[in-house]
């Protein structure tokens, strides 16, 4: 058998980087790891304040199901207003040029 089998591939070696029991905040500038209580239905990011609904694939694998709309919408609306006031939202063309 000429194939080198004992050596791990790069992909295999990355398995040790997997984390369990945590989710990442979906806010791109944050992306912090959040550890919810086992079985929790909601979790709030301690860093940026975004709040999420959770789904548990299995007891060690939580996934973010979706945002808590009212909380995150409020954060989004505030951010939009701030960016708009600061002139950081360039261009508002819609559809046709």
């Amino acid at each position: 058998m000429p194939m080198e089998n004992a050596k791990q591939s790069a992909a295999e070696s990355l398995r040790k980087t997997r984390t369990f029991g945590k989710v990442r905040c979906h806010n791109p500038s944050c992306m912090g790891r959040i550890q919810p209580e086992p079985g929790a239905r909601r979790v709030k990011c301690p860093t940026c304040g975004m709040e999420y609904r959770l789904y548990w694939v299995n007891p060690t694998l939580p996934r973010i199901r979706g945002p808590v709309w009212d909380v995150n919408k409020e954060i989004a609306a505030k951010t939009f207003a701030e960016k708009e006031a600061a002139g950081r939202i360039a261009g508002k063309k819609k559809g046709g040029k």
Partner: protein
Amino acid sequence: MALDRKIAYVNLTTGDIEIKPIPLSIRKRFLGGRGLDAYLLYNHAPKGVDPMSPDNPLIISAGLLVATCASASARTHVMAKSPLTGLLGSTNMGGFFAPELAWAGFHHLVVTGKAKKPSYLFVHDGTIEILDASDLWGKTTTETQWAIREALGDDEIKSLVIGPAGENLVRFANVMTGIKNSGGRTGMGCVMGAKNLKAVAARGTMDIKIAHPMEALEFNKRFIDQITSAKVNQTQGTLGTPFIWGATNCWGGLRTRNFQYNQLEYADDIEPEHLDEIATETIGPHHMTGCFGCQVHCRAQYRIPSGPYAGRYDEGPEYTSLGAFGAEPGCTSAETVLTGNHLVNQFGMDNLETGSMISWAMELFEEGILSEKDTDGLDLRFGNDAALLEMVERICYRKGWLGDVLADGGIPAAEKIGKGAFDYLIQVKGMNNLHSDERATPALALNIATASRGSDHLRSRPAIDLYHLPEEVLRKIYGTPIPYKGPLSSEHTAYEGKAWMVFWQENCYMAVDCLGICKYHTTFLGATLPNFEDWPKAIYYNTGLEFSPEELWTIAERCNMIERMYNLREGLTRNDLKKGDTLNHRYFDEPCKKGAPDVIGMSIDREKFEKMLNEFYEYKGLDKNGRPKAATLKRLGLEKEPSRLL
């Protein structure tokens, strides 16, 4: 041996069928599946051929490892000149057809000509027959498959079929096998319809001898462990691909209301977790099933819970159907998504293109570019579930002026509608984008702009860019098998290093498409899944062919380059909005309005985008116009194409 599988040339006009072996020298250069299909298309399609013409070759294939001991080796690939884009037509599907084709003795079929009456091919144990499909014409995709089994008296027959949309030459008609496995993109079902080819049925009992069977099985155990231990695959096996939709909608990466927004708010009813809760059809703890040889089981099953189609069984919906019948038309009803998914599956129509076309028409309607006269009285506003489903049927059967116009695809439809309608069309190379919004993700924007079959997420998308992985992890992935010392950024809103990631993924996806392995078993949605270093072992143990990871990379580069050469021959130019490597102006001009704080206000920076595109061209060995340099063609052994060796 997998290498013994043959190629057949079928001329539907004359009825001639020629069967040949596939030379090892060609295998070593293009492997099989999509890569070898691209070689065949470049060599057999006349330059400038009308996609509807009998001269447009339709190529159907099974990947090199299909039906071997390698996991998830179930992929069928179909290629021809696209009636939707006028460029490369290419589509890939799971299910059970490809293994049956391989057991029947074939890896590649090249179908030319046009049958005088509706026909289908029956491929079985080394032979091919052309049979009458007059009784099948008009049937839906599942009716057709069951009717073929009944007619031929064998319930194990697997068929690749078209539905009414293909028969009616809808330019984004798909090919289907099983309940929902779809070769959806670029209108390959339309090419079949233009040839009067209703189906290709396969049944095989010819063994595939494995080169080193014990080692192949042992290695596959390791492969399976790698696959099933991945968190992403455990999630997919519970919720299917819609789990991505939920996550994407969370941060504002979802194309909504034809790109006016990037998030569908309060969409809880169509979240995959809710679909799981209301699904009554189940084979396990969740409502999932899978393709041949796969351990992930990402395919959901359901019955429509309510409405006019209540009780109908189907599979899915995939991420794309949540976009097509949810976010894009602004609908938040599970019943609508499940019904829309069922209709396109039965009609044999690309869900992604269908949803995009209707949503585009909805925006045109709200902008006054389309009127109620154009819609025959239909109130085509966003959020009108009934109008959405009505339009699906109108497109399939080309009913009314608008149904007929939309069935011809975005660019021809924009020309017929006029009044600046093209500016609202979110497409690349004539094909609509996935229902994702790439304004906050430059790498993904570059991916859709340069994908060989038009805007597409399955050609070069570095989806793991969204995971904020540490740089050392990124270096381990993107620095193998070819060393890469340039910049890499964990930040998905950045532009630095993204061109290399797209180039790497382009080669990664080409390699799996040549092998016939599903993309959920490689570095697509999971960072720890097999890629270039793992595949040579699977290839060697199963077929006896020896490649190094670097050699596999070069083969993938070669296959991607011949696809590029085909597109260039058919008119691709860098900055052409209809046939080029560029994006609709809305990506650059309209900022995101919803989602996570950092996403709000984001759009693609045109200057940085062009710089990224230049880098991508350099990695591929293209000049600034996107044409291959002579040295690149020589390095890849493509300087004498078309070589007409097969």
